[in-house]
């Protein structure tokens, strides 16, 4: 399988705080990579670096073999290929759900209006929110907003999707409705990098797991092995913190 | 600028300053009292009274103080209600300010979350205790920025008192400009006295506002 995303030895620092040091990671087409780790280990920052929302101090990030960084001239074109969904379902509050979905395709891709609308409605239907197309974000529950945010990212036909703790701000009963959508995308063969605390979900969705702690990747590997037979003490300890026995 | 002129004018301004300050603060206290009563009437939907209160708020928020003062000072005597100028100034300011204070305090009352009330009720407080010890203090602290802003606004509004021939700061300044043409001195003194009147309140207001914000953040 061809490589889509290649992260080579990147380091991220704020003044004298090191968020992560010399991290490398490759993501192949169709692969679902799930990143876990204790709070504050820099996993969200890593996603933000991939999307050039943060700059890096060392190393490089390549998408389809092209280097991306915050000063790239064609940053906006690069970002079209990367869909990102954040923890705080940040829909545009002044636009209806349908307008939220259509804004970027129409303005960035100059896509055909009719086609875009058709696609938006189909996707909304798929996540069970067709009836909300003319509502405003404030009229939706957190779980509904997050599903719309996922659809909004899909509308740009991204090559890779980044999910940054998308269920962290949700009530427990809404977590599943959002993760079900992500799972169905995984089964479709979408390329995704997911940061999450939901271990059950990680296990179900991941092709490959990555564990970050202390500013580096401590362990990575096949999902089944990762959970059933962790190699490092740190990962064992981390995984134990999620169970009650 | 002529220091001689300043020295000569100073006592006149001092007197006017005291009058302005006194009338202004009496008006503000009045405004506060009216504001609380009106806010209660509206918040608790007291029958009849809440309707009257709402009409009062809309009427006085949507008309200028100068017009209100003219009405009280020049029009009311025609139906047998004569009020001396200084009382008129304080009452006018109180009525105008009452409508603004009411809005501020009411939105404070409305902003106290229901969960607060419920948790207090769960502790066994009576409705009255709940209001006195929980809802009202919380509402007031939410309203503080609005109240401070209103106090500053009302102190500034005192500048129209001269229109009903109260010998306030504006009146004194206008009088002296008209009489002796010492425009610069008269204006400088006017500005200085208004700074003395308002700057402390403004600074105090900023400090209080910061504190309140910190407290709410500290949750």
């Amino acid at each position, binding site marked *: 399988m061809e490589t889509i995303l290649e992260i080579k030895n990147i380091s991220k620092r704020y003044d004298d705080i090191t968020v992560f040091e010399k991290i490398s990671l490759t993501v192949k087409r169709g692969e679902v990579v799930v990143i876990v780790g204790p709070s504050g280990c820099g996993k969200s920052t890593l996603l933000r670096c991939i999307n050039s929302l943060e700059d890096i101090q060392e190393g490089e990030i390549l998408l389809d073999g092209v280097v991306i960084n915050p000063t790239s001239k064609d940053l906006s074109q690069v970002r079209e290929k990367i869909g*990102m969904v954040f923890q705080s379902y940040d829909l545009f509050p*002044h636009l209806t759900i349908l307008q939220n979905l259509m804004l970027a395709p129409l*303005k960035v891709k100059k896509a055909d209006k009719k086609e875009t609308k058709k696609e938006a409605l189909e996707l909304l239907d798929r996540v069970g929110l067709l009836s909300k197309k003319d509502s405003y974000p404030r009229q939706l529950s957190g779980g509904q907003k997050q599903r719309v945010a996922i659809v909004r990212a899909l509308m740009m036909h991204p090559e890779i999707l980044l999910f940054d703790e998308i269920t962290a701000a949700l009530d427990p009963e809404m977590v599943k409705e959002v993760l079900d959508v992500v799972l169905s995308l995984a089964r479709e063969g979408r390329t995704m990098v997911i940061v999450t605390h939901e271990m059950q979900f990680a296990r179900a969705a991941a092709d490959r797991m990555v564990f970050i702690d202390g500013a580096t990747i401590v362990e990575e590997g096949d999902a089944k092995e990762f959970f059933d037979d962790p190699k490092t003490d740190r990962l064992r300890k981390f995984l134990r913190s999620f169970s009650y026995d | 600028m002529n220091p001689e002129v300043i020295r000569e004018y100073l006592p006149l301004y001092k007197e006017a300053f005291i009058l302005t300050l006194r009338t202004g603060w009496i008006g503000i206290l009045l405004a506060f009292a009216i504001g609380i009563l009106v806010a209660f009437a509206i918040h608790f939907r007291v029958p009849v009274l809440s309707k009257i209160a709402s009409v009062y708020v*809309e009427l006085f928020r*949507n*008309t*200028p103080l100068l017009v209100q003062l003219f*009405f009280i000072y020049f029009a009311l005597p025609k139906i047998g209600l004569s009020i001396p100028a200084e009382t008129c100034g304080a009452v006018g300011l109180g009525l105008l300010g009452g409508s603004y204070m009411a809005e501020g305090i009411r939105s404070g009352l409305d902003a106290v979350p229901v969960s607060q009330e419920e948790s207090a009720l769960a502790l066994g407080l009576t409705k009255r205790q709940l209001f006195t010890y929980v809802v009202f203090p919380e509402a007031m602290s939410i309203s503080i920025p609005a109240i401070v802003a209103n106090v500053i606004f009302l102190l*500034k509004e005192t500048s129209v008192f001269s229109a009903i021939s109260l010998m306030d700061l504006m009146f004194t300044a206008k009088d002296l400009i008209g009489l002796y043409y010492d*425009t610069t001195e008269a204006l400088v003194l006017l500005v200085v006295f208004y700074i003395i009147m308002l700057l402390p309140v403004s600074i105090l207001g900023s400090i209080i506002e910061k504190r309140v914000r910190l407290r709410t953040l500290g949750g």
Partner: protein
Amino acid sequence: MGFEVLAKGNNAMRLLEGLGVAMRISLISVVISIVLGVILGVLVELKRPFIMAFFRVYLEIVRIMPQMVLLFIVYFGTTKALGLNLSAEAASIIVFSFWGAAEMADLVRGALGGIPVIQYESAASLGLTRIQTYRYVIVPQIVRRMIPLSINLITRMIKTTSLVMMIGIVEVLKVGQQIIEANRKSSPNAAFGIFATVFLLYFLACWPISQLAKYLEKKWEN
């Protein structure tokens, strides 16, 4: 009760014309305030220390100086200091714009600062350029926050125009006084009828506008 003077001659019409003067002054001032205020607000948001310091002083002056005092300074002071004979109407437009621009700038600054960073980020991650982000995401949100507040500024301007009679502009209150003077003999109670009418006129001018602001604020709150 003195309402009968309104029916005499063209008294009612004159009062309305007086109100027209007040409305004209406030509308011109509001337009100038919005234009200057938006420019200044954006400049302040750039957070250059010099601009920030200037703005703080400017804002504090407007915050504590009564418009009446500013009117006196501009109207009487400029004549004296610059030997310039400013018309009363020009003086009042200058003062109201000076005041309004400060308030607008503060509102613009607050609205700009109030848009969460994530809104910029999510627009960026959808591939919108900086200009597109402002054009389609940020500015519409700011406009929605600003419009009700700007409308409120209009009503406050209208109310404040009542002050301009104090520097000799013949607006609705002044016309009212003139009518009362002229009919002192024939309608001794004219003061009641006239001032009650002026009160009502101001209310009718301001109330619908503030209701509109309230309605829009409700409609657009997120």
